[in-house]
């Protein structure tokens, strides 16, 4: 499986393109998600899309979901709940 981070970035870029959303030019760990160019519907689509490609949705797995502010926090949540990372 690809690096979780790569999968997430690819997914963000594809969703932005499919939905005519303009992403901020430099996406990095400090990028604030609500200012990245993905709107809240785009963010919901991203999480659903990642469930398809990664096979899990961390926001369903948490009893008290933590909602990320930055891309770095978002990636960290996925890494934490990734079955592959757990085995590593």
């Amino acid at each position: 499986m690809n690096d979780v981070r790569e999968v997430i970035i690819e997914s963000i870029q594809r969703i932005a393109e499919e939905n005519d959303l303009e992403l901020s030019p430099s996406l990095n760990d400090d990028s604030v998600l609500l200012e990245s160019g993905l709107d809240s519907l785009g963010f919901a689509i991203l999480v659903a899309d990642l469930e398809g490609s990664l096979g899990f949705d961390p926001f369903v797995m948490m009893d008290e979901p933590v909602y990320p502010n930055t891309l770095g926090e978002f990636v960290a949540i996925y890494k934490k709940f990734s079955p592959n990372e757990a085995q590593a």
Partner: protein
Amino acid sequence: MLRNFVTGKFSVVSDVDTKTTANTDEAQQVLGLDQVSEKNVALHCHPQNLINWVVELDGIASSVLLVPFDACEAFSKRVEEKLELDVVLTDGMTNTEHWTTKVSGFRVDSGSQEAISSPGKRKTQWLLTTSGTTGTPKVVAHTIESLTRTTAKSGAGSQLTWGLLYDPARFAGFQVVLQAMMANAKLIVPSPDLDFEKKIDFLVASGCDALSATPSLWRKILMARAARQLHLKQVTLGGEIADQRVLNSLAKQYSSAAIAHIFASTEAGVGFSVKDKKAGFPVSWLDSGVRDVEMRISDQDTLCLKNTHLNQKYLGGGGSLASEDGWIDTGDLVEVDGDRVLFKGRLNGAINIGGNKVVPEDVEARILEVPGVFQVAVRAKSSSIAGALVEALVVPDPELDNPSGLVKSVKQHCKQVLPSFKVPAFVRIVDELPVGSAGKIKR
């Protein structure tokens, strides 16, 4: 009458000074209170002015239509077909060029005071619209009494500073406004065109300690940088099903806040709130009722409510909302799970996207307009972030050479003819639609 409730303690704070009519076209007429007496007016202005003008117009105007800040041409056209408006009042901060009705400025202190020497005799009708700004708005008439039935009129809550993240021209937003008015609380209203992070920054800077939002909007608030700096004493959820996870997240982030999730429907004008931080409501309420609302579950597993003070109706067609015995079928599917009654979505298959209603058949009709589409089924795909997303299953015309191109053309067409929340987030090409044993398409 509202002005009887509202004292000097009620105030509306925004990030811009909207009190002046400075933006009004100089050639435009500016009306005073006496000139709108007994008139059918529409308010299309910045939320801060809208709220202040609401107080002035109650008991003066015959009816007041609240126009969403971003209402477009289709909206104006539809409501002008349905209603006989006398004048649209604006502060020049919204785009009013689509109205064919006369557009005027408004100043509370201009004109003679004679017309309002005996205010309160009239019962102003408050007209709120449902559905998206580009869809067909349904106009529902309310009175202040019907809208504030579940609002505490005591001084309770007057210590709170409410934030408003909804448009006050929408049912959910107007409820927050009335709640703040009844409690004579301070209301913080960020301008609708501010970036979301900036709105939350403004709420923090203004000392907001009470907020009402849909579960989807709450998840978005929790994503904002400044969310952790909000010191909330009251957290209210409404407009969508509140699941246990979002209630848990809020209870953890705002551990000293009272948390309530509200069930209310624009159409029924009936509501109740649940304050125990658990999803759904106690099964015992089916026997005991809550406040002045009785409840029962219909044969179709929908929640029915009965209230003693029903006095709202549809305008421009459509009759009374309640059946003769006073029961209203909310159309919301429920299921008893242990000691709780949980909400399961809409009987008619309507999808709730962040508090906005999507009727699958409407979207299907639009998708069938796309050349190369043979059959389509639109259904909800559950989302941990937005509650639900719209998914379209498309069967291409067998004669079509390149079915994969359909995904893009379906999305593009939907974007042109539907408001963004109705556009399918996912379009999947399938060989056939899932059909149930009765031959009906499964959603």
